[in-house]
């Protein structure tokens, strides 16, 4: 920041002084090996889990008990494994849904509302077509299929509105999609009150349109559907022409125009895809899990999924790992909370610690710290032998040399 007059300002002087004298420097990693970021991230996960363990011990749990309960929550029975996979599946599907838009640098934070609208459309179908299943004029499978189509239309419709506004009038998609979430919640609340005029305004389990259990377990179909979609989305982004166009629009709108890509078309098409995937998530939530709807049906997953997508570097397979970690820690956290009778916020504290450390570690992926204690030692020397100029100069030279060797070493030594 140069001052207006061109003379170095006090601030500049301060920055210069810091640069010269600070014992710690932050430097961008330029030529880090490919495996390094993953080493950093895996260590971050381990650190996060150990910090959670320390918090657990501090709350009155035991260290061994922490790990036993953490793993017991997700892996002790077949049923728990299925529950874990279901949680991963839904979170992952929503993360998959927001990813194409994010790659395009279209900041869609409206997944919560898009999933909710998909879910609502599915419930509308069950609510009004369910009687045809009961009287035998329609099969349950047929109803489930209609629900799927309606949910996809609902999710896509909710997503395409901000996309059209962005493409035609360049409105701010972040605010627009965020607002759409609240409208969707309002519409769901309104619908429930309309359907349930008495009682506690709770729409109970609807009797039709249930996806069947497989092998005695619920959620299996959800998990299979999402597993297939992970591969499809990966192929779409990586190998299709659409995927390429998304990347180009994300890199530079002007480049996209130059090579003849219609940017509004790509924006609308990609958001339609995002919305469709959100719709599928809504369908799975209704027909494959809750058989009902509340304003909390999505339960914030639309926002957590954004983190999953980002932390997975928009790579569907990396997102599987992140979604697993989030679901695993949430389940472990609530298991610990009930075993040790912790407060209800404990799972949130655990996921909070995880996200904090995992996001913070990106700093170490991109930057490194350089320590320069020589300089401090030099300052000490300076104070001791103020008169001796020769030594002082010598020390400064030494310092420079040290600096150079140290930074060379830093390039090689990894965290």
């Amino acid at each position, binding site marked *: 920041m140069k001052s207006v007059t061109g003379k170095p300002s006090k601030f500049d002087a301060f920055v210069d002084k810091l640069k010269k004298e600070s014992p710690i420097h932050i430097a961008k990693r330029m030529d880090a090996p490919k495996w390094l970021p993953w080493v950093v991230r895996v260590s971050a996960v381990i650190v996060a889990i150990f910090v959670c363990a320390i918090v657990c011990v501090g709350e009155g749990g035991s260290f061994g008990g922490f790990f036993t309960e953490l793993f017991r929550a997700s892996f002790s029975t077949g049923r728990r494994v299925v529950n874990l996979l279901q949680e991963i599946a839904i979170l992952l599907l929503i993360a998959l849904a927001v990813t194409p838009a994010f790659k395009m640098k279209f900041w869609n934070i409206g997944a919560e509302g898009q999933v909710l609208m998909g879910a609502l459309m599915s419930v509308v179908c069950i609510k009004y077509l369910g009687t045809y299943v009961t009287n035998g004029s329609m099969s349950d499978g047929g109803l489930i299929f209609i629900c799927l189509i309606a949910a996809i239309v609902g999710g896509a419709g909710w997503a395409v509105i901000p996309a059209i506004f962005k493409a035609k009038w360049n409105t701010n998609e972040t605010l627009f999609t965020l607002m759409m979430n609240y409208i969707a919640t309002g519409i769901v609340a309104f619908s429930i009150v309309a359907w349930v005029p008495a009682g506690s305004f709770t729409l109970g389990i609807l009797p039709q349109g249930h996806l069947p259990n497989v092998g005695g377990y619920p959620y299996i179909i959800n998990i299979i559907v999402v597993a297939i979609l992970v591969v499809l989305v990966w192929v779409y982004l990586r190998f299709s022409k659409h995927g390429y166009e998304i990347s180009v629009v994300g890199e530079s709108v002007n480049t996209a125009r130059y090579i003849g890509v219609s940017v509004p078309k790509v924006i609308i098409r990609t958001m339609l895809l995002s919305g469709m995937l959100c719709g599928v998530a809504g369908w799975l939530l209704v027909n494959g899990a809750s058989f009902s709807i*509340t304003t909390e049906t999505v339960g914030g997953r639309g926002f957590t999924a954004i983190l999953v997508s980002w932390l997975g570097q928009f790579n569907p397979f990396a997102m599987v790992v992140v979604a697993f970690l989030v679901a695993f820690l949430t389940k472990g956290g609530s298991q610990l909370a009930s075993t040790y009778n912790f407060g209800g916020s404990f799972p949130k504290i655990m996921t909070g610690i995880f996200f904090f450390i995992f996001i913070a570690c990106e700093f170490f992926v991109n930057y490194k710290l350089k320590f320069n204690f020589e300089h401090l030692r030099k300052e000490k020397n300076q104070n001791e032998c103020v008169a001796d100029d020769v030594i002082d100069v010598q020390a400064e030279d030494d310092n420079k040399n040290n600096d150079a060797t140290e930074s060379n070493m830093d390039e090689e030594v990894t965290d």
Partner: protein
Amino acid sequence: MKKRILALVLCVALVAALSVGLVLGLAACNNNDDTLKVGLICLHDENSTYDLNFIDAMERARVELGFSKAQIVIKKNIPEGPECYDAAVELVEDGCDIIFADSFGHEDHIIRAAKEYKDVQFCHATGTKAHTENLANYHNAFASIYEGRYLAGVAAGLKLQEMGYGEGTTLGNAPKVGYVGAFPNAEVKSGYTSWFLGVRSIISGATMDVTFTSSWYDQVAEHTAAETLISAGCVLISQHADSMGAPNSCKEHSVPNVTYNVSTESSCSGTYIAGSRINWTPYYVYAIKALQNGEQIAADWTGTLATGSVELLEIGTAAAPGTKEKLDAVKAKLIDGTLHVFDLDTFTVGGVKLTSFPADIDSDAEYVHETAVDLSKGYIEESTLRSAPYFDLDIDGITLPQA
């Protein structure tokens, strides 16, 4: 002779050894079954006064039953969706023999689990479907909280009297009180009507304005609702919602307040008068003991003043003098059956005394008021046809928000 004695001794020893072995073996096999395990599913956590009431009640029940802490498993922050069903299944897998849930919206998901795990008992508070589902292991419970609210209403009436209202006074006999309700459903309507009838048992000409916040917990909405009622001329406020919104608003405007579930004497001293709450401990003890003794748990269980399920909170320092004595007298009458909250002589609907009351007892998609409640005793028996309240009439003297 010696041989005979030896044979006898050996036989006795063998039988003894066998029975010891059998007992030990059975004990080892039934290790999990002998120590009863109890699960509790809560909608929110201890930060919600509603859920805290259940969590505290379970702790008291645990102490009363002499259970260890490991015998009680509490799952908090379980939404009213498939998460509730999953939580119930996980509790079953953890060896729980009886599972309680605390929120109305948990009901269908608990029923789903109950159908799947027939040898585990599921007890759902505030639900309405146990008497129609006909599952041997699914039960509803509530309490005659309308009696508690009536008593709290009496305390409010005495306060109004102290403030100078009543027949022949300069302020007159027609003070207006206000009520912040959550939803216009039977539970809330039964609650505010009984409270209002309590007020009117002291100040016969009182009227009441009611508003609804459309949420069980919304600090801001409840605060605003109370403020609106106060500016509309209400001189005393009560509420059926779980936040501190209304009590705080009353404190700010120095308007007396009657609460539900928690006493606000510590934070709203000077405006807090009295309140009532449901104590779930008697139900927990009842259901767990029934299971221990191999008895069937009632499909619908209604706690009363007599079972200790309906409690009055502490009497506030702002309450009128003599409140405690009066409440004790009224409470005794309610318990011995000489006084009934919904006495047909104390209220009118549409200007006339009630001659018939069709109630919505059985849950169905159309919300038909299919059951004719017996009025021959001269009063409406609330919470007897099922445990959850069903009194949902709009009686005269209460002004509802314009639809």
